[in-house]
């Protein structure tokens, strides 16, 4: 890039003199910095003009550089808008997934405290939620809500009420009481839930499935908090590089139908809460420069795939693949990003209220498991059929044989014939409610009853509804 001298000068200037003076120094790096600032600010100005009601925005912060940069940008953007009559405050949410990643209680306390200090400095209301809370979520999380046609049309009284509410949530105790319904204040969780979470993650046999499940549960939790506290938008801090990796790994996971929602700017699948990704134009390199230059505080928190080898999971493999390819072909990430911009999600012809059952139970995307005659999915089913004896034949024979057959399937059964028909049927039932890639995740799961209660209840409900429908049709 530029010479070391120029860079050093630029940084020094940054500490004493405001931004415009940087332009006088080394052209190359200043041009880089100046463009970055302008672009980032511009992007936020634009997104804020679209979403004028900032109090309905929830920022999902993981502690990493990208989400913390997003937080600092929001702060800066808002401070420039300060002269307006009411001061709206976005909320911050952090999900503490230490229970799934195997971090100790002390480590979690430590990182939570660090994050708390960052959040309190911003002055925004924040929620530090532990992943264990998924075990007390209601089933409404799995049902897409209907979106308010005109969210910015608040009456004056409502706006004032909200403002007063925001003012109140500034103090710590009130933050705690606001989330009291989930009975957490500062990431407190019950021992029972902790064990349940550990059981859930140990029943997932592959790291790929674990990461997928973690992502799903995190989304559900964020969605719930957003709904409970009246937030209609959630901002995620995914950078361009992260999204390119996600696009490729989603292709490998079979999520082709939902690529646009998973990696696009806005993700409307939940109906009333929209997920937006304002940082998707910035590569991780740009974000790193930005955080360095503007001293953005961030906390590194190890995740599921930290320090694992390249082939530990599909997501990890894709990340190392893209990063390596990027060093040889510098346009890789931007090309993948451009490809993702040209995709869209096929929406079913009418509103979600008509057919809730046609959405996947876990990821809430439209089901892509229609058995088209000539498709990869159909081919998979044919292969499954051809490689094993039909199950109906088996049930007529001795039950001992069915146990043997299950074992050769590789279901991971223990000795003593634990594969009763119960387990088989629960796997089958769940499968019909899931999209292609969620099926693969559940396939890697040994005990489907370790799923959180809200998922199991909703699954049973949908299954009963389906059976009733069939019964009525047959009449």
């Amino acid at each position: 890039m530029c010479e070391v001298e120029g860079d050093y000068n630029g940084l020094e200037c940054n500490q004493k003199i405001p931004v415009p003076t940087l332009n006088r120094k080394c052209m190359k790096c200043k041009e880089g910095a100046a463009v970055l600032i302008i672009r980032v600010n511009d992007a936020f100005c634009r997104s804020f003009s679209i979403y004028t009601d900032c109090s309905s925005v929830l920022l999902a912060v993981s502690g990493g550089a990208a989400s913390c940069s997003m937080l600092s940008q929001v702060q800066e953007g808002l401070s420039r808008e300060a002269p307006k009559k009411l001061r709206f405050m976005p909320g911050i949410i952090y999900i503490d997934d230490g229970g799934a990643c195997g971090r100790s209680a002390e480590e979690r306390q430590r990182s939570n405290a660090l994050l708390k200090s960052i959040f309190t400095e911003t002055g925004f209301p924040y929620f530090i939620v532990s992943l264990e809370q998924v075990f007390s979520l209601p089933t409404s999380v799995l049902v897409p809500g209907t979106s308010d046609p005109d969210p910015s049309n608040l009456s004056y009284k409502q706006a004032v009420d909200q403002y007063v509410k925001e003012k109140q949530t500034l103090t710590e105790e009130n933050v705690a009481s606001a989330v009291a319904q989930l009975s957490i204040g500062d990431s407190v969780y019950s021992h029972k839930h902790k064990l349940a979470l550990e059981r859930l993650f140990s029943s997932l046999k592959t790291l790929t499935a674990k990461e997928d499940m973690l992502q799903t549960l995190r989304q559900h939790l964020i969605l719930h908090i957003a709904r409970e506290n009246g937030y209609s938008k959630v901002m995620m801090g995914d950078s361009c590089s992260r999204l390119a990796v996600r696009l490729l790994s989603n292709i490998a996971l079979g999520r082709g139908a939902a690529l646009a929602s998973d990696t696009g700017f806005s993700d409307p699948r939940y109906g009333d809460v929209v997920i937006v990704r304002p940082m998707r134009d910035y590569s991780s390199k740009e974000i790193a420069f930005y955080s360095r230059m503007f001293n953005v505080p961030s906390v590194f928190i190890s995740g599921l795939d930290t320090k694992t080898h390249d082939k530990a999971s599909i997501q990890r493999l894709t990340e190392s693949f893209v990063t390596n390819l990027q060093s040889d072909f510098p346009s890789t990430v931007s090309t993948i990003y451009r490809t993702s911009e040209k995709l869209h999600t096929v929406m079913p012809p009418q509103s979600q209220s008509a057919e809730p059952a046609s959405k996947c139970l876990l990821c809430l995307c439209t089901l892509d498991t229609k058995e088209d005659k000539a498709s990869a999915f159909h081919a998979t089913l044919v292969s499954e059929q051809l490689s094993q004896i039909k199950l109906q034949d088996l049930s007529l024979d001795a039950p001992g044989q069915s146990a043997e057959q299950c074992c050769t399937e590789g279901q991971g059964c223990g000795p003593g014939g634990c594969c009763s028909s119960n387990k088989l049927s629960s796997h089958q039932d769940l499968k019909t409610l899931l999209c292609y890639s969620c099926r693969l995740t559940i396939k890697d799961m040994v005990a489907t009853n370790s799923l959180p209660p809200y998922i199991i209840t909703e699954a049973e409900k949908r299954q009963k509804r389906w059976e009733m429908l069939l019964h009525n049709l047959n009449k």
Partner: protein
Amino acid sequence: MPVQCSNCVQRRAVLKRPKTGHSLCKDCFFWAFEEEIHQTIMSAGLLNRGETVAIGASGGKDSTVLAHVMKVLNERYDYGLNLLLLSVDEGITGYRDDSLETVKRNQQQYELPLKIVSYEELYGWTMDAIVKQVGLKNNCTFCGVFRRQALDRGAMMLKVDKICTGHNADDVAETVLMNVLRGDIARLRRCTAISTASDGEGAIPRCKPLKYAYEKEIVLYAYFKKLDYFSTECIYSPNAYRGHARAFLKDLESIRPSSIIDVIHSGETLSIKEGVKMPVQGTCSRCGYISSQALCKSCVLLEGLNRGLPKLGIGKHHRLHGKILAQEPLTEQEEKKLKPVDF
């Protein structure tokens, strides 16, 4: 403790299917493999009764297995097809000449008529000569484009109704990944199609009966059936971009064996926004072959080779098409960009 075959349960299993992980005995595996191809052909309506079908045969494992299975299924299910072998000689010494010997042996083993077309007779250039001019980096482009046309020309000479190629699941998955990495949205949409659109105006439709068959299973099938095939990689392929996609796919397969089909599923279910610029099919003004530009790719490539400007076909050059058609000389600046890299 020997594992029993999960299909017939009587015989001992000799292999584990890479696709599903089931353990099968030899006969059940053969049957499952052939049956899946049969299902693919039937459900996609690939072939019709009485048609003459050319099987693209290179002597490699995919085309050998394809020829064998097509013959078996043609007899078993009475497809009523007229099968023949079509082979392309690219002129790569030490690779293609050996594999052609294999094809000639296949012709005798399967008792199918054989036709060989060569780059030399069609274009006046062999791959060896092309690589000498182009270098080792972009030569796969030349070979692929020329081969496609060579197959079509050969098929037209034989007056066939359809062409079958041995593209397997790994190939299709690699193509999906490569198209995402290269940002080729038009190809991304088309590459998962099991057969090319048959417009009825000149181009002979092509299909891939092995589209859902794993490469590993094809190898297992060929091995257990003791089929005669040529198993060396093309000597010019190591530097191809496709190699990256292939390495990635192989790693994916080692993590989760169903990844290959999952990638194909993603490729089939993804949808492109409306309003994205797509190429329109037309014909080449020089040779009449189908093309989305004024000049088809092979005419452009050939022109470049003949003029000593091998980079003419690589990268964007639509503006030069007019000049080429009008046989005008290119300016010095344009020529400089298109000359081969000089060390």
